[in-house]
């Protein structure tokens, strides 16, 4: 189990591996603790290094790899990752769940974030670029 940090407006959320203050859940009841593959620098968090050559107009591009994750967890984790970033930051969300290519941009837009673009990286992999516009 992973817990999120609450929020005033809007509330925060979290999920396993997400980059929150709680990210490394020590809750013994958490059945997903330690699931993150330590070999993957981008898996489950935004603290991994940006891919080579990736820089946003206002800073480096953070990447979160959500391959293997399904909706609505894809958005929950995207939300959490964005909350960790400063305004103006770019976040690349990599997914292999096709509905997420529609759900994440729609929900992010409704939240007030900017959808920079959605692109295919491969037969079943997509990148969703978001820029943080609101807290």
């Amino acid at each position, binding site marked *: *189990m*992973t*817990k*999120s*940090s*609450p*929020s005033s407006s*809007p*509330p*925060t*959320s*979290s*999920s*396993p591996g997400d980059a929150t203050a709680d990210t490394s859940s020590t809750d013994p*009841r958490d*059945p*997903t603790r330690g699931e993150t593959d330590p070999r993957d620098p981008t898996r489950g968090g935004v603290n991994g290094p940006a891919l080579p050559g990736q820089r946003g107009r206002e800073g480096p591009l953070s990447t979160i790899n959500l391959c293997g994750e*399904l*909706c*609505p*967890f894809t*958005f*929950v984790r995207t*939300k959490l990752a964005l909350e960790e970033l400063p305004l103006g930051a770019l976040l690349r969300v990599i997914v292999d769940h096709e*509905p997420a290519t529609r*759900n994440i941009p*729609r*929900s992010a837009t*409704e*939240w007030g974030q900017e959808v920079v673009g959605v692109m295919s990286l491969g037969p079943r992999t997509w990148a969703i670029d978001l820029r943080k516009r609101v807290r």
Partner: protein
Amino acid sequence: MKRVLHLVRPNAAPAGVADRDWVVYLQPTRLVAGGAPHTAPFPPGPVDHDQVVALVFAADLVVTW
């Protein structure tokens, strides 16, 4: 009082759920009735992605299982 949302993956079993908590099971996605009174913004039953997202924003704490 904190509003806690539990998102429960298939085959996962949430623990420590209070009556007042909101619990959404996935695949199929459904909000289950908690204790009375039901405080979630949607009635118990099937919920779609947007409703889950609304619950995520409405909750003070989201716990994933």
